[in-house]
């Protein structure tokens, strides 16, 4: 069973605390920098077996946008 996107977010930011909202995005908490976001996207690629383009990586900023992109690839998270 695929992990929830929020679980991967917690894995990427083990010390951060955040609620559950698709509005969560880069900058929602101090640790979520653009570099950390890049590492988060690599983690998502690894777990769901997807591959993002350079443009997608710069455009997807929030959990909602990431979920939307994953849904387009047939992955519900």
């Amino acid at each position, binding site marked *: 069973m695929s992990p929830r996107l929020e679980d991967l977010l917690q*894995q*990427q930011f083990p010390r951060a605390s955040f609620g559950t909202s698709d509005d969560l995005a880069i900058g929602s908490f101090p640790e979520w920098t653009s*570099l*950390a976001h*890049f*590492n988060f996207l*690599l*983690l998502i*690629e*690894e777990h769901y077996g997807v*591959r993002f*383009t*350079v443009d997608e*990586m*710069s455009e997807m900023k929030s959990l909602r946008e990431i979920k939307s992109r994953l849904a387009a690839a047939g992955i519900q998270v």
Partner: protein
Amino acid sequence: MNTQQAGEARCDVVHSRVARRITVAGTSFLLPGNAAWDRLKADCEVIFADVSEWSGLLFRHEPQPEQGDTLLLTVFLQDVISPDRVAALEAKPHTSTEQLDEQLEPLWLGIDHALASRPRGSLLVAWCNVHQPVAIRCARRLPVWDLIAARWEEQLRQRQARFPSLLQLPLNRFFASEGLDLCLDPRNYYAARCRLSRRGLEVLTGRVKEIVDRLAVPAKKVLALDCDNTLWGGTIGEDGLAGIQLGQDGVGAVYCDFQRAARRLAQSGVLLALVSKNNESDVWNVFAQHPSMVLGSSDITAARISWQDKSDALLAIAEELGLAMDSFVFWDDNPLERESVRRRLPDVAVPEIPSEVWRWPGWLEASPLFASFEATEEDGRRAAMYHSRGAFQSAGRLFDSEIDFLKSIALRPSVVFISEGTISRASQLTAKTNQFNLRTRRHDPAAIRRINADPASTAFLVHLEDKFGDHGNVGLVIAHFRHDPRVAFLDTFLLSCRILGRHIEAWMLQECVTQLQQKGAQILLAEFIPTERNAVASAFLPEHGLVDLAQCSLELRQAVEPYIRECTGQVFAARLAEIAIPHLDIYIQ
């Protein structure tokens, strides 16, 4: 499990005991915060330099690194050499060495400066040539990028001969076993200026961890092998000599190659031991009678072949060899035996071996468990030395008086002053000796070289020969009188565990006293720092004329005061003239 995955499993059994710091710099971005770095962060402080800083970092003077610190410089040749210039060279029929050196020149400026200005710590250069070759272009001439990479590596090796603190990690070789395409990711390069994929980062951090772990923790010394279904296929007790699988064909050939791999380890100084549940005579009969056996009984330094528990067998072998359990690797095909040893003897490395037996020879040869940065003369002779240790112990039982016994074995210790040829051995002794070691201070080769050149220091190795053999350089003494020429501080005093029981430590102390007196010192200050492993040395100082500092005269305490700041353990002192070593007549001078 492929070789690289096996490598990761192997990493798990190498533990660090030393706090270390790694500063990471790269010509490309290396994604700090990526989970691939976590394995290094587990027991190191990892500091990332900004990607634009990599060159400036090599020229930076402050802060000076501590011993044990590592600067990891990750170089992608295509980041520092213009592809346009290389294309111009490619268009010419011939490329000269001078033209290659011209491309590399800017890199050496920083590296040479860092090597000259960092007396402590290591510089680890991980490097990669990301050029993708074209078969047709390679068919008649070597691509210029490959010529540049070869010249770069050659010059790195030349510098390594001068600077032992320089280490290199040629990443292409390790990426090759994973697939270069899987380790490099041009998408990441254009998205974040990182040339590596997540997998590539994992290969980089995994191999770096192997290297920095070895800087802190010595290689394993003993490979303890099961016999049935390990050295041969089948069970000797049931299948008999003619029924076991061992020979030129099929799986029998794999077991021969596994034995060859074990024998090559033995030739490099690893001790082989047998730990087998069997009738002892059955096993030795295979060694003596089977025509395809590669290992001979003389390759085996210790054996426990019986029906006893294998953890008990390993403990008995450790006692016989005078080695701690963390010197051992236990290899058994049976997962239950492996798990049992893991639980009872957590210090023993018990690798999760490949399930396919044909991967065993390659796995053993590629294992970092036994790998050292360099071999010393002593390594190749270690098995013979431990054989003589067994003979020494057996002979000792024949004598009632220990002194009479020691007089009978013609102990011939001698001082060996440290030179270029013995710096590695001196450093290795500080890294590997845990039992008879008063302060357990580790000194890398650069530190030994520095100490040896310091006029306010005295440093020498101790060589030992006796009727059981030439034991090589087995002891090390380092003393300095940096604060006061009249007071010498014993920085290092250690003796290899395999020759303990000969009272060589007493001779070493006498020799130390003589050397220090020749240099004008009058007082010796020594420290014992207790560890989990050095209890054997705890009584040495008070038993040889040194007095607990609290019991010393006020005058003596005042004289040693400048040195006390360096001390964290039990401190002892004595006037050199008052140190009296008994039984010096047991040695042949």
